[in-house]
């Protein structure tokens, strides 16, 4: 039998017992729609997290001293009076030279964390706008609309600033000069710095809308607040390293740990958050897998019943020259066809669910969260789940079909 005849025959055979086919298809629709929903919601979370993560870098490490206040975002620490004990738990300038001298082949630069106290940003005669400035580190993985990461004397702006500052679009902004006005602690007045726009990013929940590189920040701070560039002491330090392999990273962290310094990269933080997203996704996929397992038994049952009902027909086909392979294909393709139609229906339903639920979610429980699409059905996910359903359908029908293919034609013809 030609393969196209096998497929059409298998598909037509589905219409012989419509009730059974419909019921099995419903089981598959339930199974695959659970998979599609789990995957899409997982995608939604993942996309949100990756869009909003701090521009992570594996080359920037945050150092804290063991026993000192380890830095965790949003954590409340008990206030400690400065005492002799604490002296060992903070970084001083001597630590910077120690690190630079001990690991010259690994460390490119060591610096105290920098902040810029922005008063406003403006351009030529346009209005002045407020904003917060983040420090972006070399080798960061930022999501850019256009341009590139800022270098010395450059600035990265979010797309929110494009029109207010009078640019036509993101591309138009690249290379143009803006002025930032930073509060000068020393003189208790603001000071202007011209910077060139290097790129434009998407607006994000967790990063500030303006970003400059750490050298620019140090340069500006040296003028406006020298004490922040070289403070007496600091609870933590940042280092910028060469590109390290995972093994080198582990070794380096261990060496630092031996001298009482804990190091964690921005990438480590991101990993943790992604881990949570992945756990969430796995739980949802687990639930989906259970419903798919139920559907699998539906397919096994359908194929077994089909074989039982059509034993005579199998015998006839074998008598008329039909091969084992052909019989096997007829029944496995029948299962695959059910899987295919079930998947197709659930894909359409999933698309509709997405179209309905996203606007509802955004106007209700996700109202206050920018940029969060709850239900993201990507082509990759759709194809992945399609393949899962096909493999499951085929697998479920494998042994019943194999059994059918081995039927003796005479006995099959004689069966009642």
């Amino acid at each position, binding site marked *: 039998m030609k393969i196209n005849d096998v497929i059409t025959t298998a598909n037509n055979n589905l219409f012989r017992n419509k009730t059974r086919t419909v019921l099995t298809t419903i089981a598959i629709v339930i199974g695959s729609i659970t998979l599609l929903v789990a995957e899409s919601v997982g995608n939604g979370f993942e996309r949100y997290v990756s869009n909003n993560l701090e521009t992570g870098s594996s080359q920037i490490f945050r150092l804290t001293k063991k026993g000192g206040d380890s830095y965790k975002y949003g954590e409340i620490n008990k206030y400690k009076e400065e005492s002799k004990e604490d002296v060992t738990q903070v970084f001083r300038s001597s630590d910077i030279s120690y690190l630079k001298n001990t690991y010259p082949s690994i460390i490119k630069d060591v610096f105290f964390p920098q902040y810029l106290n922005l008063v406003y940003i403006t351009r030529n005669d346009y209005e002045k706008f407020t904003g917060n400035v983040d420090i972006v580190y070399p080798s960061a993985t930022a999501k850019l609309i256009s341009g590139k990461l800022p270098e010395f004397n450059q600035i990265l702006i979010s797309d929110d600033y494009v029109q207010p500052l009078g640019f036509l679009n993101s591309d138009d902004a690249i290379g143009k000069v803006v002025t930032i006005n930073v509060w000068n602690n020393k003189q208790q007045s603001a000071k202007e710095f011209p910077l060139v726009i290097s790129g434009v990013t998407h607006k994000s929940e967790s990063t500030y809308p303006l970003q400059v590189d750490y050298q620019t920040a140090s340069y500006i701070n040296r003028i406006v607040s020298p004490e922040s560039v070289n403070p007496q002491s600091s609870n933590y330090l940042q280092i910028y390293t060469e590109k390290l392999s995972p093994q080198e990273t582990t070794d380096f962290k261990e060496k630092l740990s031996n001298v009482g310094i804990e190091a964690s990269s921005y990438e480590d933080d991101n990993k943790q958050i992604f881990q949570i997203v992945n756990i969430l996704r796995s739980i949802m996929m687990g639930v989906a897998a259970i419903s798919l397992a139920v559907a699998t038994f539906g397919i096994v049952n359908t194929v077994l019943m089909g074989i039982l009902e059509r034993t005579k027909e199998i015998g006839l086909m074998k008598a*008329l020259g039909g091969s084992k392979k052909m019989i096997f294909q007829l029944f496995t393709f029948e299962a695959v066809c059910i899987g295919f139609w079930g998947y197709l229906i659930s894909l359409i339903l999933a698309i509709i669910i997405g179209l309905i639920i996203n606007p509802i979610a955004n106007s209700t429980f996700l109202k206050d969260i920018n940029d969060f699409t709850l239900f993201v059905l990507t082509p990759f996910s759709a194809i992945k789940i399609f393949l899962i359903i096909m493999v499951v359908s085929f697998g479920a029908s494998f042994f019943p079909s194999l059994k059918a293919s081995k039927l003796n034609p005479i006995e099959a013809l004689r069966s009642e």
Partner: protein
Amino acid sequence: MVKINPIIEAKNITRIYGSKDEEICKALDDVSFTINKGESVAIIGKSGSGKSTLMHILACLDKPTSGELLINKIDVSKMSEKQQEVLRGDCFGFVFQQFYLNPNDTVLENVVLPLKISGKDSRKNREEKGIAILKELDILNKKNNQAKNLSGGQKQRVCIARALVGDPQVVFADEPTGNLDSANGEIIEKILFGLNKKGITLILVTHDYELASKCQKQIMIKDGKIVKKL
């Protein structure tokens, strides 16, 4: 002068049901005969005599426990499963007492099933061949009817059409008139012997002596043995 050309040779064929150690039933016991190309042969016997088993072995649907079966001078036991399938599909046609038509398929679909299985013809070619054979058997007007809506005689004609559509050398007919009234039985007989006149070898399994007597050769089976060859 008819050219003698053995198409089927059975040599000492024995078929035992059950295992070698535990013989349950000896359906065929040392059966030998030759069927030539273009002959009409009746295998006669009572129910349980072993005649159906013999037909199944001749049609390569069953394997003899011992003995040799040559088809077109080739030993069937040396053929691969695939070759046997091709042989059944391309050289043999089957007419069954119970018809074995797929009840919900149309007449035409039933008739072209062997062509669909062998996978050589396109859909269009298959239908052309099916229509031609239905026309020949004078049942073309029923081609789009479901098989379950036909009378017994019509069903058997469809069954014969299905047997012939692949242009076989040998047609096996297992009690072809067994389920039919005498009027329809006669029509079917005429069709079958008409085929034989066109050169198709006809192997008829029956318990009906009258029908068997119309064949050129009769092989009478009793308790698995040939009791009479004519």
